[in-house]
């Protein structure tokens, strides 16, 4: 086939200044096609430019076919890729430090990642709130595996309809209650930072687009 006879394009940085027979550069004609350059009335009546544009339109057509072909192949089995990745990830978990659970004389512990997961879930259960970062830290800095109260630092995104103070209070209540009722973790302080806003569909009252 003639394909392999095409010289392979060199990889230098600047587009070359290939000129069409009419004097326009191929680059400028393509720029008009890409809507990156100003409209050029010359293009409408020049046969050389028309040929260059026709070739590019033919390629556009192939690009559309390639996109839809890619849709079909990659949609095949996303679950398999996810499973392959997660099989390895689960061998390399990052549980974080151990935090004390229950009473002072008990020897119950929970890892930070698990406690954080519970607190994020509690915050997510507040309507119009989605949790991001959640750090659970010993109240006394530097205390290693020592039994003692902890502090929770939570970042959330909240629906625009929330008042900032109200949402912080609602999240604090949800986290405290999860700490007491679900975990048995002595949480002394819950710092809530609202770092982003959510679209209205997640708003507390079901959104206002009804």
């Amino acid at each position, binding site marked *: 086939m003639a394909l392999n006879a095409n010289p392979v394009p060199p990889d230098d940085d600047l587009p070359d200044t290939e000129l069409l027979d009419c004097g326009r550069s191929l680059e400028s004609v393509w720029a008009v096609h890409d809507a990156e350059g100003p409209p050029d009335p010359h293009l409408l009546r020049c046969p050389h430019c028309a040929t260059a544009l026709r070739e590019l339109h*033919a*390629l556009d057509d192939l690009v559309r076919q390639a996109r839809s072909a890619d849709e079909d*192949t990659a949609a095949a089995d996303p679950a398999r890729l996810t499973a392959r990745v997660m099989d*390895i990830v689960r061998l390399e978990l990052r549980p974080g430090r151990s935090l004390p659970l229950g009473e002072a004389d008990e020897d119950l512990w929970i890892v930070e990642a698990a406690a954080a997961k519970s607190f994020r879930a509690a915050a997510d259960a507040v309507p119009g709130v989605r949790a991001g970062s959640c750090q659970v830290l010993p109240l006394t800095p530097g205390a290693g595996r020592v039994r003692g109260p902890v502090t929770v630092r939570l970042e959330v995104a909240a629906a625009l309809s929330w008042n900032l103070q109200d949402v912080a209070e609602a999240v604090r209540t949800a986290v405290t209650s999860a700490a007491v009722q679900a975990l048995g973790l002595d949480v002394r302080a819950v710092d809530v930072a609202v770092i982003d806003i959510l679209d209205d569909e997640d708003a507390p009252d079901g959104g206002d687009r009804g």
Partner: protein
Amino acid sequence: MPGDGNHTSGPTPSGPAADPGDELLAARAREGDEGAFETLVHRHGPALLKLAVRILGDTAEAEDAVQEAFVSAWRRLPEYRGEAAFRTWMYRIVTNRCLNQLRSRRPAADLDTVPEPAAPEHEASPARAAESTAAMKALGTALAELSPEQRACWVLRELHNQSYEEIAEAVGITHQAVRGRIFRARRHLTEAMGAWR
């Protein structure tokens, strides 16, 4: 929908809300929440796989590359501070990995001047089911003739709608170099496909 007869035009209660956005999930994953990471993999895996198949021209190699890219992202998340969007970050890791893989295929060759031979697996691979038509097959062959960087730039631009800035970051070359690669790639593809027709 059946059984939905009492639906009114009033506000609908928000159901179990949608998954959090990428940046919230990435923050969770950074702190060791593997469930959040799994959602991110599920969300972005398919697009990244398409990208890798086009750059590498082989499904099995592409799956390996994307898998390794995600595992590497999991390991690097503790240092990820969200300077780039998670998706942009993943595009960069996957593109890098694919280009490195192509470089290691032909260690002795000068990548920027030597033609990329259409690899034999290219023809036989199931990925090429995507090229069920003769035109798609010809496009695949013409793409394989580009240098790895030209191909990566063109695929990121034309098939993945990435901006020149994003491509420059993903490939690790300047904005101007990206324009040059894409111009060359296009010129080769229009010529090759013109000859093919």
